């Protein structure tokens, strides 16, 4: 093992230019994937922010007994989809209208009777903020006897759904294309490294090295280069993110797990690419 590590590191010393080239190639390929990932991450964040506003409001019939409503509110909060259910009394509704609708303050001030109904405002858990679940919960709310009407932005929720689907599809296709291009470019770089050392491989085999022995330093090197490339790519992505954040719009960066995943992806491509290249080379000699 010791020897394998030494051989793997020696390659960096023997062929510093080619090694640097492969690390750079891997880094830039992953950087492109990373940039796209940043766009995807931010798009998702934006969609989540929008979805934050998804709310179902159940207006109550006037005179619904408060005990019944409180009990029902508890029931609603216990729905698996529901994050919070808030009771808004008639008075609170009026109060809110007064502060929010400043232009109508006078009109609202002069009212003899409060025309606003009490309501229960229901917020769903993030992963249920789509048309299907919203509809479903709204339907259940309608089932309560004291509920007069249930409102939510139906069109709006459906649009949001469609947007999410498009984002996911584009993300999958473009992301897969970028990843494929990265894999091809990285694979080519690794093949160059293998070809550069084909003389050495031939001599190794001549003096009785097993295929496994020939392969191991390449795999280690490939994984190591991939990891370095991944780290550089995450660094570059962070640079890009910092610039965008400073000069353009407030953006989000990868979570720690996503950053680790990029580095891991680099390592995996490096490893698999090396295995494929060396394997192909060995099969030909």
């Amino acid at each position: 093992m010791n020897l394998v590590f030494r051989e793997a590191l020696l390659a960096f010393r023997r062929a510093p230019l080619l090694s640097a080239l492969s690390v750079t190639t891997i880094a830039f390929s992953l950087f492109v994937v990373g940039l796209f990932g940043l766009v995807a991450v931010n798009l998702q964040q934006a969609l989540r922010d929008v979805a934050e506003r998804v709310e179902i409001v159940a207006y109550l019939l006037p005179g619904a007994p408060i005990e019944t409503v409180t009990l029902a509110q508890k029931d609603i909060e216990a729905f698996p989809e529901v994050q919070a259910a808030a009771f808004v009394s008639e008075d609170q509704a009026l109060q809110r209208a007064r502060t929010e609708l400043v232009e109508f303050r006078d009109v609202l001030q002069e009212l003899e009777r409060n025309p606003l109904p009490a309501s229960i405002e229901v917020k769903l858990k993030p992963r249920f903020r789509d048309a299907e679940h919203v509809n479903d919960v709204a339907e259940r709310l309608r089932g309560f006897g004291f509920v007069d009407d249930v409102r939510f932005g139906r069109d709006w929720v459906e649009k949001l759904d469609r947007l999410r689907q498009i984002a996911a599809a584009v993300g999958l296709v473009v992301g897969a294309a970028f990843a494929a291009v990265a894999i091809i470019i990285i694979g080519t770089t690794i093949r160059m490294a293998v070809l550069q050392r084909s003389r050495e491989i031939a001599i190794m085999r001549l003096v009785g090295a097993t295929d496994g022995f020939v392969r191991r330093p390449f795999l280690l090197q490939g994984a190591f280069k991939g990891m370095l490339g991944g780290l550089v790519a995450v660094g570059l992505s962070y640079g890009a993110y910092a610039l965008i954040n400073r000069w353009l719009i407030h953006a989000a960066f990868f979570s720690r797990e996503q950053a680790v995943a990029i580095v891991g992806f680099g390592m995996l491509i490096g490893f698999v690419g090396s295995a494929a290249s060396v394997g192909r080379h060995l099969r030909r000699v």
Partner: protein
Amino acid sequence: MIKFTNVFKAFPKGGLALKDVSFHIAKGEFVFLTGHSGAGKSTVLKLVYAEEPATSGEVRVSGFNLAEARRKDIPRLRRRLGIVFQDFRLLEDRSAEENVAFALEVTGARRASIPARVMRVLTQVGLAAKAQAYPRELSGGEQQRVAIARALVNEPTVLLADEPTGNLDERATRGVFQLLRDINASGTAVVMATHDLDLVRQAPYRVIELQEGALVFDSAVDERRDEAASP
């Protein structure tokens, strides 16, 4: 120890490189493999170290039947052979001792034992003083000695040499040839392909001659027959 029985070799592009070749080389023998360029000398050696498979016939080397040997058996075979070429095939970015050590590392030899074994063979080939030199700092003859040291370090039973003196001047040739004779004298069989007939005449060793892929002369067989024929 090396036994060819009715061996044919055809390359995918190109005709028959070997036609019905049979011979047997015993432990500790010294054998010249001669013939004109393209006669099939290198091909015979390639078949011995399993670089190429025979098209038909049987090749046995050190207990391996090469027709049945699988790819994973080949390293074990090669560790019993020492192989030397006209163009030395040293790694340019390693010193003489590193080149020799490489052959031991590859076989998974115990690390602590490597330096002493390397020095021993470098001394044997007369290059102990240049252990740290890189191939570009060595003459052709010296490079060939490093290659021979590398071939010897695994203590092979046979040394295969494909025109080991082909790139050397007369003096270096004599030196390398003497080294091969010494190696043979200490018990290692040597099979040497060459078209240097002066060298062949100098020494009383067995000669196998190929012509267009056919074995046309084997001193071990033909001289015995000559003796039997003469009164």
